[in-house]
C-alpha cells in the first residue's frame, strides 16, 4: 500500500468514524438495531449536494443535511414506539422510503460536486491535499464530534439515555420517559450519519443515490472491530474504539483492492475484506483463550 492510499484510507476511515459513532448510539447505547442509516447517509449527501449546486453556503448546506438526517431517525423511532412496530421493521420502512426521497431531492441519480464551493474548498487545491490536509481536516472534525458525543453521554441526559438502553424496565421504573429517549437518540444517531454523508459528498465530490447500500455494515463492522481491539469498558474508549475500527476497516478495503499479488482475482475484494476483518475480530479472542489455556496448565 502506498502512503497515498494509506492516507486516503485514514481520511475515509475518520469520515466513516462518524457513521460508527452514530451506529454505536443506536445499536449499543439504545440497543436499537437501526437500518435507517442506509438511507440517512445518502440523504445527508443529497441534501448538501443539491443545496451546494444551487449556490447555498456549504456550511449551511451541511447543517441542513444534519437536520434532514435527524428527521429520518425521528421518523423511524416514532413508527417504532408510537405504533409499537419492531425496531428493525420500522427502520427498514424508513430506509426504503428514503431511496425515493433521495431521488426526489436530487432530481436525478447523482450529482457531481467537483469545482463547486464546498467546506473543503480552501484546502482541496493545496499541493498534497490528499496526503496531509484532507486527513487532518477529517481528524479535526471527527475529534470535535467525538468530544461532543462524549460530553453528551456523560451528562445527566446522556446517562438517562444509556439507562434506557441498558435496562428499559428499570429506567421506566425510575421515571424515565423511555420513548422520548429513543426518539431523541435515534434523531441524534441519524443526524451524525447524515453529517457523515454530507462530508462524504463534499470531500469525494459527488452524491449518489446508491451511496448508502451497506452503510450499516460498515458502521457495525467498525464498532465490532473496535470492540475486539480495545475491549472498551468506559464510554470514551468505546467511542475511540469505533473510530479506530472504522479506520481499520478502510485499511482492510485498501489492502484488498490490491489483492492481485496473492493470485486472487480483483472480484474477490469482498471476500478478502471479510477475511481481514474476521481475522481482526477473532485474534483478540484467540489471544485470551491461549492465556487462559496457559494459566490453567500452570496450576497444580
Amino acid at each position, binding site marked *: 500500500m502506498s502512503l497515498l492510499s494509506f492516507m486516503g484510507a485514514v481520511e475515509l476511515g475518520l469520515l466513516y468514524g462518524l457513521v460508527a459513532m452514530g451506529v454505536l448510539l443506536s445499536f449499543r447505547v439504545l440497543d436499537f438495531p437501526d437500518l435507517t442509516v442506509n438511507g440517512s447517509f445518502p440523504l445527508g449527501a443529497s441534501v448538501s449536494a443539491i443545496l451546494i449546486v444551487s449556490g447555498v453556503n456549504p456550511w449551511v448546506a451541511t447543517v441542513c443535511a444534519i437536520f434532514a438526517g435527524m428527521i429520518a431517525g425521528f421518523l423511524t423511532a416514532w413508527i417504532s414506539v408510537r405504533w409499537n412496530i419492531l425496531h428493525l421493521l420500522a427502520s427498514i420502512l424508513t430506509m426504503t422510503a428514503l431511496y425515493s426521497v433521495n431521488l426526489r431531492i436530487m432530481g436525478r441519480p447523482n450529482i457531481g460536486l467537483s469545482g463547486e464551493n464546498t467546506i473543503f474548498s480552501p484546502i482541496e487545491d493545496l499541493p498534497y491535499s490528499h496526503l496531509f490536509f484532507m486527513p487532518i481536516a477529517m481528524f479535526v472534525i471527527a475529534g470535535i464530534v467525538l468530544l461532543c458525543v462524549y460530553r453528551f453521554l456523560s451528562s445527566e441526559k446522556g446517562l438517562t439515555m444509556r439507562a434506557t438502553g441498558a435496562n428499559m424496565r428499570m429506567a421506566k421504573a425510575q421515571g424515565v420517559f423511555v420513548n422520548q429517549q429513543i426518539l431523541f437518540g435515534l434523531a441524534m444517531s441519524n443526524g451524525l450519519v447524515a453529517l457523515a454523508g454530507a462530508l462524504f459528498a463534499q470531500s469525494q465530490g459527488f452524491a449518489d443515490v446508491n451511496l448508502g447500500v451497506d452503510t450499516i455494515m460498515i458502521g457495525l463492522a467498525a464498532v465490532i472491530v473496535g470492540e475486539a481491539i480495545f475491549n472498551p469498558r468506559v464510554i470514551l474508549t468505546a467511542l475511540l474504539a469505533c473510530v479506530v475500527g472504522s479506520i481499520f476497516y478502510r485499511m482492510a478495503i485498501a489492502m484488498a483492492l490490491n489483492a492481485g499479488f496473492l493470485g486472487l482475482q*480483483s472480484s474477490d475484494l469482498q471476500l478478502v475484506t471479510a477475511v481481514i476483518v474476521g481475522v481482526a475480530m477473532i485474534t483478540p479472542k484467540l489471544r485470551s483463550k491461549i492465556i487462559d489455556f496457559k494459566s490453567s496448565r500452570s496450576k497444580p
Partner: protein
Amino acid sequence: MSSLKNHPENVTGVKDAPPIKKQIEFIKTLLPTAKTIGVIYNPGDNGSASSLETMRKEAKVQGFTLVEVTPINSSDIQAAVLQLVGKVDAIYVPLDNMIVSAMKTVSSLALKHKLPVFSADSGSVESGATACVGYSYPQVGLETGELVANILKGEKTTEIDIASPGKIDVFINRKALETLNISLPETIRNQAHFY
C-alpha cells in the same frame, strides 16, 4: 444471437459497443511512452465484465500491462483511484454504470495526480475524462435511421448485417489535456470534438 451476420429474421441494427481495440491504440498514439494502464470497474457490472475480457486480450497484444482495481461501492472509488497513482501511466474506464456516474470524482482526482483518464463513452469526456475514441450517439442514431429507411424501402432484415457505425469520433477534454501537457497529433486535432 448466433453471430452478427447470421441473426434471427426480425432482428438487426447498429452496434454501439465501445471499440476497445481502437481505444487502446489511441492511448498508444497519445502517450507513446505509456506501459501500464489502470482499469477501474465494478466487478458486479455485466457490461464491464465482458469488455474486460476483450480489454485483457487487446492490452496483451499491444504490449500494455493492465492493473485492475475493482471498487464494489461508490464509497470505494477514491481508494481505487489512489491505489493506481504511481503504478500506472493512464486510467481506462469501461462502460460501467457506477464508475461513469462518478466520473467527475475519478477524473478530478486523477488529474490532480497527473494521470490521464480514457473513457469508453463520449459522455464521460464532458464530465472531465481526458479523451475518448468512440461512437457518438447521434451517429449511431443516424445510421440506425438509414437502416430503418432501407427496410421500409423493402430490403430484408436477414440481408442486413449487424455492424458498428462506420464513423469513429474522437472526443477531447481541452482543460484536461492542457493540465497534463499532452500534445495532440495534427491529424487527430483536425477531426476531434472538443469539450
